[in-house]
């Protein structure tokens, strides 16, 4: 049984159809990369899965349980939406760390508020996560004292602290200087070897190619092509995919 199954997701903003019916599934431990040009709906798809936007139609299943149904979406209570969100973690393009809390507090805030164990347990777990993202010397620093790459690593640890079934990344390196993207991508690679299930919206083609098990190329609100990295990058079937990848090679070498 797939850990995540998305069926026919549709979303419009006013008269603009952003997602025109997307379906895909993801197995436990798989890494899915979503690529495509700006405006193709990648981020909106991720936001719908994370319930930051409520899709107009479609269904979402996690571990075989239906957590979203477009027909009854309006009846979802705030509490249900919160519960559904906890299946997922989301790492934002712009990090969105809480500026008034230090690294440790950023990570322990949600587990403490959600009462996920005693204060000592939560702290011990947070410290382990901070070590995992390589920031043990920064636990008492505030976000404004960290580089972008360090902030993003804290954001990853913060998302992991709630042990989501699926960790989502929305262009995690797009706001970073080129020399800082490496450290963030390395953390994501490490997570893959630890068998985390992940969805990564990215412009890093090298990363998508080397790390993912599955790649989705999105264009104009639909899944233009889905396949293994080799299928998408070496042997794309769709003309749109080919021209997108060609442009990427031209601009990024």
């Amino acid at each position, binding site marked *: 049984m797939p850990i995540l199954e998305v069926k026919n997701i549709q979303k419009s903003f006013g008269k603009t159809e952003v997602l025109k019916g997307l379906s895909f599934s993801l197995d436990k431990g798989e890494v899915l990369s979503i690529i495509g040009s700006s405006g193709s709906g990648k981020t909106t798809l991720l936001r719908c899965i994370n319930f930051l936007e409520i899709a107009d139609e479609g269904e979402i299943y996690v571990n075989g349980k239906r957590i979203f149904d477009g027909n009854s979406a309006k009846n979802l209570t705030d509490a249900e939406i919160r519960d559904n969100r906890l299946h997922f973690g*989301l790492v934002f393009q*712009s990090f969105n760390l809480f*500026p*008034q809390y230090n690294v440790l507090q950023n990570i322990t805030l949600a587990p403490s508020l959600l009462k996920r164990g005693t204060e000592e347990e939560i702290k011990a777990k947070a410290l382990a996560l901070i070590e995992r993202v390589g920031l043990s010397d920064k636990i008492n620093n505030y976000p404004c004292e960290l580089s972008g790459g360090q902030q993003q690593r804290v954001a990853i640890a913060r998302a992991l602290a709630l042990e989501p079934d699926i960790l989502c990344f929305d262009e995690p390196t797009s706001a970073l200087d080129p020399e800082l993207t490496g450290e963030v991508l390395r953390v994501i690679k490490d997570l893959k070897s630890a068998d985390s299930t992940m969805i990564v919206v990215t412009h890093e083609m090298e990363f998508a190619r080397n790390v993912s098990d599955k790649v989705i190329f999105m264009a104009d609100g639909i899944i233009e092509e889905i396949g293994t990295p080799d299928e998408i990058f070496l042997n794309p079937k769709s003309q749109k995919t080919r021209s997108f990848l060609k442009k990427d090679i031209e601009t990024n070498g």
Partner: protein
Amino acid sequence: MSFQQVSLSLAAGFLENCRLFLETLLFSIPLGLIISFGSMSKFKPLSFLIKIFVWCIRGTPLMLQLFVVFYVPGLLFGVPMRNRMLAALVAFVINYACYFSEIFRGGIESIPRGQYEAGQVLGLTKAQIFFKIVLLQVVKRIVPPMSNEIITLVKDTSLARVIAVGEILLAAERFAGKGIIWPLFYTGAYFLIFCGGLTILFGFIEKKLSYFKA
């Protein structure tokens, strides 16, 4: 009339100013927060009504509002306002709550949406997001405009003399009526010292909150 006698008499007046100042802050800050939530409400009729109300209060002189609160209950309902201090307090609280509400609204709306969304994806409730994530960032951003407004309030309290609240300027005017002018100028020292203390306090708060950038 000795300097000491005048000082004591003015101090007694200034105590009224301080009382009005503190009580106004005590009530207008929470009320201002409620008004700011109302003006940001998605329920359009409510936010519209609140905006009209804020416009009326900010668009008319505080002195006029003092007269309205003091005289209108008696004129319209036959229950004259006997407590002058209470009338002044009501007028000040409403007036300052409206100004504060606009500062709060500006502060709250200036917090990036990403902060709310980061809280949402961590499964936090709206109240947890507001109190644990947004509030302190808002406080940090509004300290400078709030300190401005609060220092204005100190001096505005002497407007209460128009409905004969026995505040410091009224006390000084009594001396002036007897031909002694200098106490009138001397009142400035009380305000200066009080505002000086506030300036130091706000500087301290700003420094306390300077450990993070928001």
